[in-house]
């Protein structure tokens, strides 16, 4: 789960990190009122979860009310890389002389968190990592004891941060690590950390991703989840408890197990189609989950055909077949053609139960996907 900037900054401020004063606004008048309270100059920032907001026109620096009106009117309601902007953060503009990067993430290969500092702030850090890896100072952290102050100092001095601001930046880094550990973050970063003429460090942006698997013990962050959700169908998937990712194609996909569902998507592409979604109904699915899954995929207006691919381990083919029959029996006319392939536990029983007036049955993964792609081409 990824927090919005304003949510992450609220968490940062609560931990004592230096963040600029800000207000959230959803109308032009609210934005003007917020700017008046904070005092000019301010930044007006779109609250959507995409990188590169500034370049895409989602961040404007303004000096007065007229400019604030113009900027807020332009940004509110705009489409930023496919996401609708319905709120802006109005934030005191920082007069900076330098931009740094500070962050904490998980090094998967080492199974250890890693804290990072760079003087190459304000640009995409993954580009820095690819082009100039030595510009990023890294400290691996023993999760049992946490990031030690000397490690933070070492990273800051290795990175070449000016001595005058080094202590402040080191403190930002240890605080970020503590937040990362206490709040079950998977990634936390400030890019840029702005350095002012007075040698203060200010967290001008805030990125925080929280481990979905730890939300059970992070109730304050879990409460922010609904607002953090983007797409309407993805919100519905949350409600049904499915792993779901919406894509832009027209072949709807339902399956069990992440690897096999991903493979089904890839095969749709391989046979010349385009996948509409990733939907994993999980292990041991009963009839009701099957019905919910079909409901999800049918409600995506881009979908022209559906492939239902189950390899039963814990999941039983007869349960799935029952669910498919029940779900489709509700319709006078099946909204989109459905191709079903069942294998594994009780697959034979499942195939016998399936109502072949309602669905097309295929024996293999490949033939099922090929058939579903054919259906989108109007070859029914």
């Amino acid at each position: 789960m990824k927090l919005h900037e304003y949510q992450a900054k609220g968490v940062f401020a609560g931990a004592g990190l230096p963040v600029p004063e800000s207000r959230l606004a959803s109308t032009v008048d609210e934005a003007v009122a917020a700017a008046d309270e904070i005092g000019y100059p301010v930044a007006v920032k779109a609250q959507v979860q995409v990188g590169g907001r500034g370049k895409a026109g989602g961040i404007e620096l303004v000096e007065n009310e007229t400019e604030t009106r113009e900027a807020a009117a332009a940004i509110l309601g705009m489409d930023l890389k496919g996401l609708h902007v319905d709120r802006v953060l109005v934030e005191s503009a920082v007069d900076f002389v330098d931009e740094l990067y500070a962050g904490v993430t998980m090094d998967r290969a080492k199974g250890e968190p890693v804290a990072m500092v760079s003087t190459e702030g304000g640009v995409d850090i993954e580009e820095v990592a690819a082009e100039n890896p030595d510009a990023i100072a890294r400290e691996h952290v023993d999760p049992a004891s946490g990031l030690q102050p000397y490690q933070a100092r070492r990273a800051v001095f290795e990175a070449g941060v000016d001595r005058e601001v080094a202590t402040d930046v080191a403190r930002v880094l240890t605080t970020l690590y503590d937040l990362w550990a206490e709040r079950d973050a998977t990634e936390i970063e400030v890019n840029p950390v702005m350095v002012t003429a007075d040698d203060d460090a200010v967290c001008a942006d805030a990125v925080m991703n929280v481990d979905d698997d730890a939300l059970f013990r992070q109730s304050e962050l879990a409460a922010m989840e609904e607002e953090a959700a983007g797409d309407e169908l993805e919100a519905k998937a949350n409600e049904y408890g499915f792993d779901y990712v919406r894509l832009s194609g027209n072949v709807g996909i339902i399956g069990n197990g992440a690897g096999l569902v991903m493979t089904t998507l890839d095969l749709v592409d391989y046979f010349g189609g385009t996948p509409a979604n990733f939907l994993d109904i999980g292990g041991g699915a009963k009839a009701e989950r099957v019905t919910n899954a079909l409901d999800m995929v049918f409600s995506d207006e881009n979908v022209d055909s559906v492939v239902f691919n189950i390899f039963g381990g814990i999941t039983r083919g007869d349960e799935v077949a029952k669910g498919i029959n029940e779900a489709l029996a509700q319709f006078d006319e099946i909204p989109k053609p459905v191709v079903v392939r069942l294998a594994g536990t009780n697959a034979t029983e499942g195939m016998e139960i399936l109502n072949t007036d309602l669905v097309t049955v295929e024996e293999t993964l490949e033939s099922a996907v090929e058939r579903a792609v054919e259906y989108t081409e109007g070859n029914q």
Partner: protein
Amino acid sequence: MSILVDDDTRVVVQGITGGEGQFHTEQMMSYGTNVVAGAVPGRGGQEVDGVPVYDTVEQAAREEDANASVIFVPPAFAADAVLEALDSPVELAVAITEGIPQQDMAKVYAQLEVSDTDLIGPNCPGIITPGEAKLGILPGNIFAGGDVGLVSRSGTLTYQVVDNLTQRGIGQTTAIGIGGDPIIGTDFVDALAYFEDDPDTKAVAMCGEIGGQDEEEAAAFIGDHMDTPVAGFIAGRTAPPGKRMGHAGAIVSGGGGTGTAESKIQALDDAGVPVGDTPNEVADHIEAFL
């Protein structure tokens, strides 16, 4: 021959009194696995399907000579259960649980480096040596004994590839699901090294997916250290960056785009490992090796 588990494996099931634990204990036993004990704190002295339950893994290992553990413990408590297994005499722990918080696994990983116990998983279907022992939730009936090793990050994709092999009469020495989480115990390189050392494994099928660098490391290992031929499959060619595709570990990171299917396929290709476009093509490559 096989790797890690066989007829001599004596299993303790952590979480044997839970719904999943009980169901899969029955399934494992009916497959022929030698389940000798359960371990559930506070339930010592009870029995499940005739299997004696102990309060701790330590007791189960001592009293019943258990040398491997299978963990069916809910996510909030699972990391602690894994740590208990690592700090006990069992030589192998298999963690089936999905949804263990990453930071808990980071603590487990630190212990793993100093423990003599191997960990498979978490978030995995387990390990099976056909006809001898199954530790986990894999459907035993699709497997057949033979001379192909299989290692995979995904459960059902493993079943798909095994089915493609078994259907054409190609059996398996051992199949391991290493799990779909970002932080896991046994990784591709570990599993490939075991298969390389097993004289009965004549070829290996390896199923990777997007996210992380494990497949790239495996490719380098195959190129430098393996004589046994390997065929590969990589799931997630069509996955968009920044989206978690079901598995917590299956994500292409944004910006720089690390962990992509292209990068993994390229690395395997460079190491001379044929990569199938479909699961059935993996079986084609394996058949050609034998």
